[in-house]
């Protein structure tokens, strides 16, 4: 049946059928998502409003916003604010996380782009190199973090040894122990580990760019850098932005790398570490749930803002 010859009722029936089919196909996925994502999330948010303790989750009582913010009265007219929102350590961990995510994702994007551009050209052994750069990404974070912890160790670490041999430093630096260098050490290891992921996604975007555009540009004698800025970059931008969103989401919930690499102090504590500490180390499951809920909203807020801002740009490109 031709679209032109279709009457209005036929069209709506078809549309309804299609809708039904779409829901039927989506249903299994939605059910799984509800079970593994929505339900735990709802539970966590609910626990944040209770006085739950890990040992007695069943006896949790509703306490409202007490875990987030409440006025603790000393009983003599004086008092102070308590709760996650009033805890300077929480805000420090939010700042640490955002600082980490911003710096590491920026560096990874630049490095990833450069590597992708190199790998996009054909040279002998390209397949091998493409596979080889994925190794850091393939190693489980806990393993690579431990490996780097040994390499950065102040007494038996190879990094200090090499830097001292070439004369860049004259005494061993305790990379992961001193507050001034710990965060940079974490960023460095994260860049080492996730640049391949970035490079791979950007490479995929590069391969979507049709060759005839380059050919035309070459015939017109466009200089290489201008070609990159005016042709390549705009065409790979959608793919690049998706990669950046993925990495940012990942970086904002950083846990394992920091937990293994550095002492859990105010200087490097991330939001996830703060939440875990309260959930399991201390007898404050509800308070930790409140922190986890806030973590969720901070990440959601940043991601939505980022997508909004970049989509506006994309629409302008079109």
């Amino acid at each position, binding site marked *: 049946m031709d679209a032109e010859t279709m009457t209005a009722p036929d069209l709506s029936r078809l549309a309804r059928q299609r809708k039904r089919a779409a829901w039927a196909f989506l249903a299994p996925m939605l059910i799984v998502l509800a079970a593994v994502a929505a339900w735990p999330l709802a539970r966590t948010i609910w626990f944040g409003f209770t006085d739950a303790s890990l040992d007695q*989750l069943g006896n949790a009582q509703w306490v409202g916003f007490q875990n987030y913010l409440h006025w603790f009265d000393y009983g003599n007219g004086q008092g102070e604010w*308590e709760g996650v929102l009033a805890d300077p350590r929480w805000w420090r961990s939010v700042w640490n996380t955002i600082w980490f995510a911003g710096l590491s994702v920026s560096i990874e994007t630049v490095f990833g782009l450069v590597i992708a551009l190199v790998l996009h050209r054909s040279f002998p052994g390209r397949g091998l190199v493409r596979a080889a750069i994925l190794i850091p990404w393939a190693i489980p974070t806990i393993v690579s973090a431990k490996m780097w912890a040994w390499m950065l160790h102040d*007494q*038996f670490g190879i990094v200090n040894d090499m830097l001292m041999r070439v004369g860049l430093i004259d005494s061993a630096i305790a990379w992961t122990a001193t*507050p001034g260098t710990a965060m940079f050490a974490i960023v460095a290891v994260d860049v080492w580990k996730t640049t391949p992921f970035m490079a791979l996604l950007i490479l995929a975007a590069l391969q979507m760019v049709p060759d005839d555009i380059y050919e035309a540009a070459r015939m017109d004698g466009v200089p290489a850098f201008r070609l990159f800025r005016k042709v390549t970059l705009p065409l790979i931008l959608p793919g690049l932005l998706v990669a950046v969103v993925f990495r940012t989401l990942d970086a904002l919930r950083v846990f394992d790398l920091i937990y293994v690499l550095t*002492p859990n102090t*105010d200087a490097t504590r991330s939001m996830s570490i703060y939440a875990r500490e309260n959930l399991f*180390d201390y007898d*404050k499951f509800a308070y930790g749930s409140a922190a986890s809920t806030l973590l969720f909203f901070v990440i959601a807020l940043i991601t939505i803002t980022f997508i909004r801002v970049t989509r506006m740009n994309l629409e302008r490109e079109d």
Partner: protein
Amino acid sequence: MTQYLKSLAGAALVSLAAFSVQAETLNIVHGAVGMDDEILRRQLDAFEAATGHTVNIVSMPESTTDQFSQYKLWLSAQSSDIDVYRLDVIWAPQISEHFVDMNEAVEDIRDQFVPSALDAQTVDGKLVAMPMFMGAPALYYRADLLEKHGKSVPTTWEELTATAAEVMEAERAEGNGDMWGFVFQGAAYEGLTCNAMEWVGAMGGGMIVGEDGSVGINNPQAAAAIDLAASWVGSIAPSGVLNYKEEDARGTFQSGNAVFMRNWNYAYALVTGDDSPVKDAVEVAPLPGGPGGAVATLGGAALGVSAYSEHPEVAIELVKFLVNFENQKMRAIDTSRPATITAIYDDAEVAEKMPFIPLWKPVLDGTTPRPAFSTKRKYNEVSAEFWTAVHNTMSGNGTAESNLAALEARLTRLKGDAW
């Protein structure tokens, strides 16, 4: 009819008994350092051969802070995966409800044990776990270097600071550029709480939280002790000490790069072991003291049977086996872990093969427990607040005085009306 019921019950009991002598598979979770796992495996092999059961070791990281949260997760989920837990000496008050009461099962053997070790595992009359070994830290020192430079073993922390600096400088001047004066556990974890309690106690700064629950840590003596420790970082101790746990400190000391080390008893068997480069040069002394006396934090581990174990009888049998005289003696000799059975300290073979153990008896008798009983379920948070204040001071983030004032405020708020 009653006769019939009785015989039926009897048959049921017999079949139950038959069921329980079946070969079971148990899991023991074991946060180990040094040779702990190796020795445990050897002892488990003996248990398996004698009983026909199978026991698997589930390994855990070295830091007890890391172990605790995993254990708490398993226990809160009432997981039957783990039958026997090796618990740190301080955990009983926080997780007592998840363990089987051992009182009845050990009725026949409890007289053999050091009473204070049993007390540390008894919460409101319930024996939560059986003490496996005790711990009292030692000052490990390089006797060869002290002799070479004409120094004696320091008895106060100030003396240690001066001696460590002098020997370190002299050694470095002779071309031994990697030499450090003192290594200890300075990472932000439970180990730092133990170390700092010793400095503060020796200076007369008292406890973090007293036995009556009072918060008395904010005093000039405590501040002086922590300031002294902060002065070590980057001078007599490598600045990496801020991230050192037990094995990092041992690594530095055992490779010959430190004059003094504060560590637990397990390190003795290793630094004096055959493959240790400093095996003939190391000796031990009690930790230095001060106006408040010499303080040594009570350490050690205990074995508890999970209340959610599917084979509690076999698990109890296993615990009793692992804490019996022979096995404790083996641990004392091979891993230099002080026993919880009194008789081991008088045993001639132990005295001959591991003289450290009988030598350490008086130190063990005088150890100071951490405030786990007075702060109950909030102990972990109290300890974390304390080590954070100390760690901040040592990393140059505020003075001891201001950090202790903040600590006092936070602890008082944490305490509320009562711990």
